[in-house]
């Protein structure tokens, strides 16, 4: 039997089973129903961690998610979880936990030496020193501070567990499964409403499990269990335990984290570790309860000093006492319950100290019936003990101080309603003088606060307000709840007078336990003018720990208020921000990680390309064949050269299905396209294709592509692969917002068609065979820029005489399902013509040889003039971008314009990103004349070539300049050339 486990009573444990776990390598045992914290307490472990700054010994303060002290590293290896609250960890067999932020060991921590300098390490000390000598900060001080940073250690390995997201919708979301929440869910659930009830605990009931209550004459915990069973049986009610609603967002949307497998050694196959829920709720009931606050006195951080309600829960639910002798220090009625429960569980209570001079007679009666020693109007000044409480100094109402031996101390400073979720949308809680705490005010639309969260501290109040809110939510969703009479409960004393801090203590009095913020730090901050809550927080780091000040913020405000002669009400509440409790980054990412981070779009020929041993490249969402190396081609240059030469001398085929295809129809289609393209489209004859550019409203070039006219009222646009979606959005904007009166219909047909470029002098020969009897592809019958709709192999098909490579070329489009088949047909038909597949590398190289602009040139900051396309801007019509393109800054003659470059030394390599400098000009921004946007080795010309933008543009053809690239490959002298390196007259593509 472990040290502090009470002998009798089950509580919420299953004593018939024993679980074993280790803490700092030492083996302990507990039972199902234990948390790591309760099991450690049961085993007599009081020292569980060290504080952040002074490395002070720390124990367990609370029983819930507000715990500031008891943080451990849970699990090992890739599953190591730093800063895990022992109070929230459900015990499982084989659990491994380690203490943090101590070296070499928890009991003997060298970091504790900081305590010796505590006089120096006060609020703001960083900012006042480490400044001289200047060099030391970077090299000595700062690295040292960073080494000292942090509490637990994250794993360096990828998280092996899975996560997922889920969406839920309900009439009523109940946050918190205590008496108020259960009453709300039950009322609405019975009425037939869709209810979701979330509680971060693995056991519903809240304080009903921690306190001793009677509801309708039976044990409160039992009532909770029975209510949970009834709820579970209701078809439209979903109970989510181990689930924290961590944030409220706009549109009645809530974020919740379900800990699916954290109570298991590891998730089962196909089971996630955690699930991130996005819950949309018509109504929300905030039944998150209240958090008890500590009292600030000397040595109040000593292990063994705990919140009174926590002690009560450990005793009643977990059958554990924090110490064989446990004193109580309170300023409210609630604290007395702890003393009573301890005594009734045969734990010695050396003294109950109540700061109030007068208390309800009923309490005194119960105390004397139990023979409890009570001191009224007294205060505890200091707690003593190095690694655990051994004694307390009590000053009575006559100022006499006496030391009383005890090995634990339960502290009850009153209750703070848990208002967090009510304030996530910017609402600020209101100060209540009766409670001496903030209560929810100005709540998000549709949210109702009930029970302790609303300041209703009595059980009767919780049940009453909960049921009422449940009824209200049900009727809002169209369900009428039966007017059940509320369960019978005894009314209880819940009064108190706040005692924020005692005076005349000797030791350090802590406000924020985790960050070691003491009364002295707060005093300094106030003295230096940092007394507004936000500044106080930032200057002292108060409330910035993993507990986000749940147990410290209000005490700090009360102390500052006292120091500056104000009331805590004047300071207001610190803005609450999501998440309510820390949420794993992995959970919020869900399944979108690794290769599944974003979807991957595959071309119709993907499998075929794989079978041909292609290499692939990711271009945005698309994955495209980069090249088709033959066995033995180890060097990318050899493959590139072969693919380009094969196209230039023979014929090649390339999957260009990724280009956006937009179908435009309607009587006004021509007019519409004239307005969105800079060049004239309406004059395009049926059966013809035209190159077009679109400008943004600000006059910059947006996208380029071809426009084919299939009938007087039917056009087919092609866009760049990258802009396909943006262009459709742009056109829909023009159609729906700018010119809703035009008769135009738009549809994306990108996915419908597989499209293959068949390019090279022998492409005609290939297509003559392939389309025999289907289309006349002769130069006369199907000249450059012709287009036609065909019926091929019993399917619709489309043929275009367009060329990106600069060769005689066609593009054949077939229904996407037919893509692979068509490719096989092309390859089969062209076998003896030497047809080869070519990839993005060759495509990109040939477009640079031909001087076609692409993404690197269409970078959103280039005008049509910059790109050498100025002549395309029609003067005969109005179109998007026309007016602003005329701004002086966009038409200035000194703007860098498109040119070609080739190295003066034929063997020299060019890099995109190099900047142009005049020969001999020193490198400086003033001398920067432009840059290389695209560069490639040209197999056709046998040397590197590039496109770029240069001040003066093509006026400078023939001039030699320096391509300055200190970053990667150094400087190269280049000659300015026409951007069209290959067949400038365009004879080949017209052949």
């Amino acid at each position: 039997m472990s040290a502090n486990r009470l002998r009798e009573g089950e509580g919420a444990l299953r004593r018939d089973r024993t679980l074993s776990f280790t803490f700092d390598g030492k083996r302990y045992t507990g039972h199902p129903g234990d948390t790591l914290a309760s099991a450690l307490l049961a085993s007599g472990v009081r020292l569980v961690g060290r504080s952040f700054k002074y490395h002070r010994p720390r124990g367990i303060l609370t029983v819930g998610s507000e715990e500031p002290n008891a943080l451990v590293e849970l699990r090992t290896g890739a599953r190591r979880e730093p800063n895990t609250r022992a109070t929230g960890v459900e015990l499982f067999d084989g659990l491994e936990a380690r203490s943090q932020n101590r070296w070499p060991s928890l009991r003997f921590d060298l970091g504790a030496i900081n305590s010796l300098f505590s006089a120096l390490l006060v609020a703001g000390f960083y900012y006042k020193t480490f400044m001289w000598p200047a060099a030391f900060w970077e090299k000595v001080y700062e690295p040292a501070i960073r080494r000292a940073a942090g509490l637990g250690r994250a794993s360096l390995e990828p998280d092996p567990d899975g996560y997922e997201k889920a969406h839920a919708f309900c009439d009523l979301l109940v946050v918190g499964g205590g008496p108020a929440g259960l009453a709300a869910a039950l009322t609405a659930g019975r009425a037939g409403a869709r209810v979701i009830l979330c509680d971060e605990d693995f056991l519903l009931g809240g304080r009903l499990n921690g306190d001793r209550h009677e509801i309708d004459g039976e044990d409160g915990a039992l009532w909770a269990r029975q209510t949970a069973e009834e709820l579970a049986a209701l078809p439209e009610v979903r109970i989510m335990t181990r689930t924290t609603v961590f944030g409220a967002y706009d549109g009645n949307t809530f974020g919740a984290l379900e800990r699916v497998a954290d109570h298991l050694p590891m998730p089962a196959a196909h089971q996630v570790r955690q699930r991130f829920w996005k819950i949309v709720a018509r109504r929300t009931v905030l039944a998150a309860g209240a958090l008890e606050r500590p009292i600030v006195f000397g040595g109040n951080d000593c292990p063994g000093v705990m919140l009174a309600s926590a002690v009560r829960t450990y005793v009643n639910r977990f059958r554990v006492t924090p110490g064989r002798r446990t004193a109580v220090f309170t300023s409210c009625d609630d604290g007395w319950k702890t003393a009573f429960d301890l005594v009734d569980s045969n734990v010695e209570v050396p003294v109950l100290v109540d700061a109030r001079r007068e208390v309800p007679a009923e309490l005194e009666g119960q105390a004397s019936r139990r023979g409890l020693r009570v001191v009224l109007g007294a205060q505890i000044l200091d707690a003593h003990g190095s690694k655990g409480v051994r004694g307390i100094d009590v000053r009575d109402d006559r100022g006499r101080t006496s030391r009383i031996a005890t090995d634990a101390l339960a502290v009850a400073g009153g209750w703070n309603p848990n208002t967090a979720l009510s304030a996530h949308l910017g609402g600020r809680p209101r100060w209540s003088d009766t409670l001496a705490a903030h209560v929810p005010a100005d709540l998000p639309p549709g949210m109702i606060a009930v029970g302790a969260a609303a300041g209703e501290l009595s059980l009767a109040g919780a049940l009453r307000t909960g049921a009422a809110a449940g009824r209200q939510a049900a009727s809002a969703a169209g369900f009428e709840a039966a007017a059940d009479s509320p369960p019978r409960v005894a009314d209880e004393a819940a009064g108190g007078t706040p005692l924020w801090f005692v005076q005349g203590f000797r030791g350090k009095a802590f406000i924020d336990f985790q960050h070691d913020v003491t009364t002295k730090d707060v005093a300094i901050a106030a003295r230096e003018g940092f007394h507004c809550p936000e500044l106080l927080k930032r200057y002292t780091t108060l409330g910035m720990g993993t507990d986000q000040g749940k147990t410290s913020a209000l005490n700090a405000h009360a102390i500052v208020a006292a120091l500056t002669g104000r009331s805590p009400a004047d300071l207001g509440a610190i803005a609450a921000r999501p998440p309510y409790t820390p949420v794993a980054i992995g959970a919020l990412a869900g399944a979108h990680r690794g290769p599944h981070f974003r979807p991957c779009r595959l071309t119709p020929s993907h499998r075929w390309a794989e079978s041909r041993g292609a290499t692939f490249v990711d271009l945005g969402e698309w994955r495209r064949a980069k090249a088709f190396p033959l066995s033995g081609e180890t060097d990318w240059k050899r493959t590139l050269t072969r693919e380009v030469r094969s196209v230039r001398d023979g014929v090649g085929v390339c999957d260009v299905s990724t280009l956006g295809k937009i179908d435009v129809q309607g009587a006004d289609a021509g007019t519409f396209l004239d307005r969105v393209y800079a060049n004239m489209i309406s004059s395009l004859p049926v059966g013809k294709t035209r190159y077009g550019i679109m400008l943004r409203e600000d006059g910059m070039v947006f996208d380029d592509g071809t426009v084919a006219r299939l009938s007087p009222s039917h056009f087919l646009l092609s866009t760049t692969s990258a802009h396909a979606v943006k262009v459709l959005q742009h056109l829909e904007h023009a159609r729906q917002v700018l010119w809703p009166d035009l008769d135009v219909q738009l549809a994306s047909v990108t996915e419908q068609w597989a499209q293959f470029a068949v390019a090279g002098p022998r492409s005609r020969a290939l297509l003559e065979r392939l389309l025999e009897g289907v289309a006349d592809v002769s130069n006369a019958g199907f000249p450059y820029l012709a287009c036609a709709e065909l019926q091929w192999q019993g399917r619709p098909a489309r043929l275009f005489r367009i060329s990106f490579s600069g060769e005689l070329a066609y593009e054949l489009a077939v229904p996407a399902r037919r893509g692979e088949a068509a490719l096989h047909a092309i390859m089969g038909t062209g076998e003896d013509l030497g047809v080869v597949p070519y990839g993005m590398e060759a495509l990109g190289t040939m477009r640079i040889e031909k001087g076609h602009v692409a993404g690197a040139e269409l970078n959103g900051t280039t005008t049509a003039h910059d790109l050498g396309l100025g002549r395309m801007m029609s003067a005969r019509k109005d179109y998007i971008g026309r007016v602003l393109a005329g701004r002086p800054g966009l038409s200035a003659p000194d703007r860098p314009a498109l040119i070609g470059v080739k190295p003066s030394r034929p063997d020299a390599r060019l890099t995109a990103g190099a900047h142009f400098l005049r020969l001999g000009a020193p490198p400086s921004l003033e001398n920067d004349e432009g840059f290389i946007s695209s560069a490639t080795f040209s197999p056709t010309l046998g040397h590197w070539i590039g496109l770029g933008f240069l001040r003066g543009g093509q006026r400078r053809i023939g001039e030699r300049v320096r391509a300055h690239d200190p970053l990667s490959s150094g400087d190269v002298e280049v000659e300015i050339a026409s951007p069209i390196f290959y067949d400038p007259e365009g004879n080949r593509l017209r052949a």
Partner: protein
Amino acid sequence: MRTEPTDITCPALTSLPTAVGNGRGVIATEREGLGIARIAARKGQSARMAELFRARFGLEPPNAPRRASRGDVAIAGIGPQTWLATCEHAGNTFAQSLGPVLADCAAVCDQSDACLILRLTGPRVRASLAKLIPVDMHPRSFRAGDLAQTVCGYINITLWRLEDTVQSDPVFEVWAGRSLALSLQQAISHAAAEFGFVRQSSTGPADAGRRTG
């Protein structure tokens, strides 16, 4: 070399396992051979379009995100004066035949090859889709015949619900762009894995899911 392979929506799908996890919580089957036409009425011509469509197929084009079907033909509203019409086994010929009929009052685009269409059923299909789709699929909120255009992860999809099966399992059909077929199936099988995901070869006609008698 095989020169005449049959039509394939997404060749890469063949690389996927046909079952993930244990059980048959979600059963997916790819719908094939469907003729799909996107119909957008010309300005002020939607009434005329509806009239012609009714005359030809005896079906009223819904002016809401709903789907109506009769025999092999179905039509669903996907936007203002815009519909998606389908016809069993018709392939590309459906849109081709529809084009001339509606020519003067609507733009018709063949979409028969543009999408992967998965029919999803099984006892846990709702729980699985809830992990992927931000739309309320509670039977009271999303009824048989309802349609939603929404996102699944980062994939645009169209989703509609058919009549439940004889085992009263819900039946949905999910549409996504062909190029995204692999990613979509991975997402669905991943979401359904804990309940057991099974992929079957293609189904019969559209309403095979409907209760008989």
